Structures are given as structure tokens and as C-alpha cells.
């Protein structure tokens, strides 16, 4: 395949029209006016035919919610199994893999010998949402939800999440769990 060199046109000798400021200023203004006209039209169509017809790119944020793609990495959350307990077995892999070292776990055993995290603190002030914890967890216990609202607080203590505030029932995270199943389990990635 050919990678060839392309000389860039420096437009050294400006045509007479270019040397006169006005013509190309008007051409530039015409572009802006065309955008304005299309957007105004878009507003009227939006009133008649609903949001899809809106030309303007901005979103009315608090009223309208942006559509989040399945791969989105939001707040890390612990999956709560159907019997109400957490899926995490306190193996500490996420604690080891987390670059800014914001996860700290103290593990313990239940009577039936099942390991569980006595305390699981995730420091929200340090978390960089890189998704390593979700990537390394062998039990799919910690998952990046698609929540990005309300993550900042006025004082840092509130941003250090303990186990209870991290737990989210499995149904809510099902979409993300499917993406993980597609990401890390699928043949496409490995065989």
C-alpha cells in the first residue's frame, strides 16, 4: 500500500478576493448563519416531532439522561447475591491490582467455611475508575456500575465507601455482568 507525501497548499499568493478581508469573512459568517438556521429549524421540529429531530448537540443534562454505553466504567460496586450475601470471597486480588491502592479488605470465614469480607473499604477519593478490580476479580464480585452522578461529596470521609454502601443487588448490575461475560469469557478473546 502506498504511503505518499502530500504537499500542503500554503496559499502564499492570496487571490485578490482573499486579500480583501470582506468576501471570506462573509463566507465564514454564512457558515455560522447556516448552523443557526438549521438549529432554529431543529427546535421547531423538536416541538412538533420530539427529541430525535433536535439538531443542537447539547443535552439538557439534569432533565435528560445521556445514554451510557455498556462498556462504561462508573462507580465500582460489590455484587449482592440473591441470598442477600456478598459474592466477594475476600481473596484480595483487587486490592493487589489497584494502581492507586484504594481498596483494603479484612477477610473472615463464616461458620460453613465460606470466606467473606468482614470489612471492604474502597477509598472513593483515590479511585481512578480504571477497571482493574473488575478485570482481575475471579468471582465477578466487584463490577463497574454505570453510575456517575453524586460521586463527589463535600468532605472526604463520606467518599470512603464501606461494604454496605458498595453492595448493589445482582439484578441492577446484570447488564454490566453480561458485558464482562462477553469481555473476559468469550472465545473471541482467547481461542
Amino acid at each position: 500500500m502506498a504511503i505518499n507525501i502530500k504537499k500542503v497548499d500554503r496559499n502564499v499568493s492570496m487571490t485578490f478576493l482573499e486579500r480583501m478581508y470582506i468576501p471570506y469573512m462573509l463566507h465564514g459568517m454564512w457558515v455560522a448563519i447556516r448552523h443557526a438556521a438549521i438549529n432554529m429549524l431543529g427546535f421547531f421540529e423538536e416541538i412538533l416531532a420530539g427529541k430525535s429531530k433536535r439538531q443542537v448537540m447539547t443535552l439538557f443534562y439534569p432533565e435528560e439522561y445521556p445514554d451510557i454505553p455498556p462498556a462504561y466504567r462508573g462507580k465500582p460496586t460489590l455484587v449482592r447475591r440473591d441470598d442477600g450475601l456478598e459474592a466477594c470471597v475476600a481473596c484480595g486480588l483487587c486490592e493487589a491490582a489497584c494502581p492507586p491502592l484504594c481498596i483494603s479488605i479484612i477477610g473472615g470465614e463464616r461458620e460453613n467455611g465460606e470466606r467473606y469480607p468482614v470489612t471492604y473499604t474502597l477509598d472513593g477519593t483515590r479511585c481512578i475508575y480504571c477497571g482493574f478490580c473488575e478485570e482481575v476479580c475471579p468471582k465477578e464480585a466487584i463490577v463497574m456500575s454505570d453510575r456517575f452522578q453524586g460521586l463527589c461529596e463535600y468532605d472526604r470521609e463520606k467518599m470512603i465507601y464501606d461494604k454496605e454502601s458498595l453492595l448493589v443487588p445482582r439484578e441492577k448490575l446484570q447488564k454490566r455482568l453480561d458485558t464482562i461475560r462477553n469481555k473476559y469469557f468469550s472465545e473471541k478473546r482467547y481461542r
Partner: protein
Amino acid sequence: MREEDKERGYDFHKASHTETMTINMGPSHPATHGTVKFFLTLDGETIEDIDVEIGYLHRAFEKECEAQKWNGVFPYTDRLDYTASVLNNVGYAMAAEKLIGIEVPERCKYLRTMISEMARMSGHYTNVGAGALELGALTAFIYFIEARELLWDLIESICGARLTHNYVRIGGLTNDLPDGFRENVKRVFAKNRKLWDDFDIMLTKNRIFLDRMRDTGGISQKDAIAWGFTGPCLRAAGVPYDVRRAQPYLMYDRMNFDIPVGSTGDNFDRYLVRMEEIKQSMSIVEQCLEQMPEGPINVDDARWRMPSKDDSSTKMEPLIFHFKQIIEGQSIPAGEAYQAVEGANGELGFYLVSNGGGKPWKCRVRPPSFALTSALPLLVKGSMLADLIPTFDMINLIGGECDR
């Protein structure tokens, strides 16, 4: 001080009792985006002397990497050239793979080529848009920000984040393309091409923009090479050096695209080179999407990739290996390797040294904008204060990449 004054021993300042004014165009000035400080001595409006001071965004990248595992370094590489973070990921991953001596499968190479070009587009949108913004063309800036917004939505649907992509791993990638990606790309690139034309109409032939950008901040070919210029600024000076063409890596030898080259090396050439590169990157992404074969996206050697979860959650040996790999890190054989990648601002080189352990012994980044900014006094001395702004923009100093 003009030359003929010097011969006659006539000092303009003493004769007319004026003196130069020193200004701190400090880190928190609108044009320096908070990462660099110019100590200017101004004679009226012309810059007599300029001392560039960087280091305001120094976050000890190398020290952090030496304490981090090989795969844990990726979130740090996102924050180098944060306008085009996947390019750093790809550079670091390829340097590590060169150190190990493995080759990623075809599909992964195509994916990496495509996402690198999308990141390059995002880097150029940010830079050229901010350059127009600082000259006053607000509407043109917003058009490129809109184009970047649409592009970021595309990248977000692949990597999961708009700015810090963290998408590439040693030996492959985190995930494959989401479904419905090709239609999105067609829709977004159609809109981006329209916005590109609008930006072009508003500025490229506008005499005000031409006068501001042309013949300011120019550099000759010889000086550009001597100062270590690479990337759009070197190509603007007329030297057709592009790592993708000189030493093709990934799938660039199978793409056909043009390398825009300027002639005089002033700001207008740099602007035109970057604008042309946006168009070329779009065509490369489309070519990648057509030629991309099906198949795995990770290398088949179990040592250099994350074991698939159905292995590590069912069989014992993969689980043990998974634990060992996460806690101790992948033990890359001892040695050193330098891999250069064409970043948004120039040649982005990664020099990795490994002593066989799980942590990098040294992870050096060759920052393209570091060399460009060191030549800023040469470009700007003697010109007007107002010329410093487009020159500083077109050099595109990214604090994260220059200060590391």
C-alpha cells in the same frame, strides 16, 4: 536592538529613557493552560527575551512506574498525552511486547491501528481548536469540540472512558468492538467531515487568520532537526519524517494514506499539516474497519495475558497462575528495548529496562513536546507578544507529556 544601532554604539533605551518590562506570563494565564510559565522581558510589545519554565505538571511518572507492576502502568500512560491517551497505551504495550519478543494477532493489530488513529484525531481536534480559540475564533473552536465530543462517544463505547481509555494491555486488548460500532462510525465521520469543512471555510482562507498564523514562529529545516523536532512541527518544516512511514509498525504498511508536509515551518504550515492529518486519520480508521479479520484479540501465550475467566474460575492451575500474575506481576525477561510510535505531537518513544522482575526497572518516555518547547525561545524571540500565543498553541505543549 537593531544591528546598525549596535555598530554605532547607540542604545535606543538609554537615549529615549525607556526600559524593558518583565512580565511573568505565569502558570495561571489563559494562554498557558496552567502548565508552563514564561518569564518575558518585553520591549514595548516585542519580546526581547523569554525564559520557559516547565514542570508544573510533573507527577513523577517514572518513579510511579518503577513501583507499579508491568500491567499496572497503563493507567499512568493514559495521563501522559491526555488528549490522545490510547497512543501512549499502544506505545508502552508495543515496547513491552518488543522486550518480551511476542507478536499480537492480526485483529488486535488492526484494532490498535484504528484506535491510535482515533486518538490522533482527538489530539488534533483539541490542539487546532484551542489554537483557533486563542486567536478569537470561538465558533470554530466549538465546532471542533463538537466533532471531538462525537469521537469521544465512539471511543467511550469501546474503552469505557472518554479521556483515560486504559484500553490496551501487554499482549492484546481488554475487549473487542461493541456491536453496532460500524454504523456509529459511519454516522459520526459523516458529521465530523461536515464540521471539518465548516472549520476550514471559516479559517483557512480568512485573511485575519492568515496574517496571524503566517510567518510567525517559523523554523528552518536544519534548526528543526537540530532541536529534535518530530511530528507535525517537523513535517511543517518540510522534513517528511513520520514513524508510521519511516518504520511502519502495526498495520500501517497495509494502509494507504498521505503524510502532509509543509514548506516553511511556520504556524500556518503546522495548522495545515494537522488539519490534513485529521482527514487522513479518518480514512485510515475506515480502511481498518474494512480490512479487519475475525479472530482472537490477545496473544495465545498464556504467560503474557490475563487468563480467561472461565478458566481461572473453574480450573486450579489457571487460578494459581492468575493469582501469581496479579500479585507479583508478569516477569518480563531481563533486557532493554526502545520502541517509537507516532504520537499526536511527534515521535513518542518508550525505553523499557527490565531486570527480570515483575516491576519495570526503568520506564522512560521520550516526550515529543519536550523537545518542541525547548526551542520556543528560538521561535519567538524578537516577534510580538501576540505571536507567542499561536506559536505556543501550534507547538501543542501537553503538560502531562512534557513534564511527565
